[in-house]
């Protein structure tokens, strides 16, 4: 399964980004890592070019809040090309404090299928694999 990943916006947490890449590869995913400082449109374009199954965006400094509000607009722009792509986001998704109860629905409303706020990487990836298995049943 193909995954496009990277860190969104002006976020340069390169170590976390590399750990995500390694973990995904260890689980057998084919990974396209766009690295840090990636624009939302680049993520979506990379999914189109690679025909990826999953888009996994990460954010550690809360940049996601400002950058990911337009996921639905981008999805609409590309129409059915993105219909089967799973949109996932994880990390520390907002600036300051906030509870997952508030944040998860907010990001789902932005257009993400799976949202993990301050959840450790392996738990998030376990949930992703579970989600994909359920979906492909």
């Amino acid at each position, binding site marked *: 399964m193909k995954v496009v990943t990277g860190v969104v916006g002006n976020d340069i947490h390169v170590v976390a980004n590399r750990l995500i890449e390694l973990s995904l590869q260890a689980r057998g995913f084919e990974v396209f890592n766009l690295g840090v400082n990636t624009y939302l*449109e680049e993520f*979506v*374009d990379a999914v*189109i*070019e*690679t025909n990826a199954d999953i888009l996994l965006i990460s954010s550690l400094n809360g940049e996601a809040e400002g950058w990911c509000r337009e996921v639905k607009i981008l999805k609409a722009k590309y*129409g059915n090309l993105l219909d089967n792509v799973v949109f996932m986001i994880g990390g520390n998704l907002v600036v300051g404090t906030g509870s997952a109860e508030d944040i998860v629905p907010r990001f789902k409303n932005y257009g993400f299928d799976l949202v993990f706020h301050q959840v450790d990487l392996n738990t998030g990836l376990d949930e992703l694999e579970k989600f994909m298995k359920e979906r492909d049943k």
Partner: protein
Amino acid sequence: MSKLENKLLIDVGSTYFKLCTKDSVQQHFRDFNKDIYDDLTYKCGEIIKNYEKENIHICSSANGGLSTLIIGISNSFSLKYATNIAFNSGINIIDTVLYKDIETTSIPSDLIDVVIVVGGIDSVSNIFDEKLFKFLKELNYSNIVYVGSKKDAPYLQKNIENLVILPNIINDKLHVEEENLKEYLTNLYQADIMGKEDIKHLYDITSNQIFSTPYIVNKTLPMIDSKFKVADPYILIDIGGATTDIHYSKDLVDENMVTQNEYDRLVFKKLGVYKSKESLIFAAKNNEFVYELLAHLKVTENIFDESSEKSTRVLMQLAIFLVLCKVSAYRQAYVNLKLLALNSVVFTGGITKVLKQEEIEDIVTFFYKKILNSSHNPTIVMDNNYDVWTLGMLEK
């Protein structure tokens, strides 16, 4: 100059011929009522006859270049990569079509020299379909090349006549692979010259391949410090009669495009001071800071209606200001350069014959102050002697 021993270098520009020998560089204004070859041999025949054909090297930007249409599936990868390669191959006129919008895109009426189709990494298939063939049927083009996913190549070849297939420019890591397409476009430029009455006679005086001038300038950049006091990162601005080019160090951009080139090129078509004067004035009038700039230069907008040495100087100053605006964060263009990190700005082309160093410095300072709110001051380097293109010519 030792490499220049017995060699004559000629640059045929849209407004000037430049000739470089081991002793000097000279320039001649072109007579547009004459064929390029006749005009060149009339003005420079005495010099040319002293050299063997194999020792004469010519580059040219005078034949208008190739017009290119790129069809790709995303802005950030396929279209961006192919556009970048085309610019670095010396092509000036580029239009792009995003494949998902192909059915609603108006068909260009002009003859397109080359259509580039690109999209997808090699493991992806079924990217293109009938929509592409329908669009191409309506289009008037001379050449077509496919540089996208390997899996789609047989299907496209079956359905598109005379399709040239080259390796994918997007590799499996989503990085750009530019050499094959670059070579194809450079050869096409060469073939185009051979077909143009105005240019092909230049082969009567040279037995070497004629390259496009921007391609040669791009080759020069890694060795520019052998002649100029230039500190990286830098940009080179070539303001010509028809277009303005910016060649820039890759250190000035944050992007995911990984190439082997240290330098890339951007072209602002119809932004020249001679053949594209009207569109330059149009662009100037649409910039909200331009009237402040004119006041700073102590002229009014009436200068746009004048035809004098002074008005040419003002147009060149405006061109500098406008291209800096276009590559700054102030105007979201194809590429935004980190201008606050810039150490040097090199100016080449006719501009170095018209503007004094202090006039250019004045505009650059004005730009930094007004647009970037900064007192940053990159060093201005003038290629007064047209040396930049000669370095690349000798390396070819």
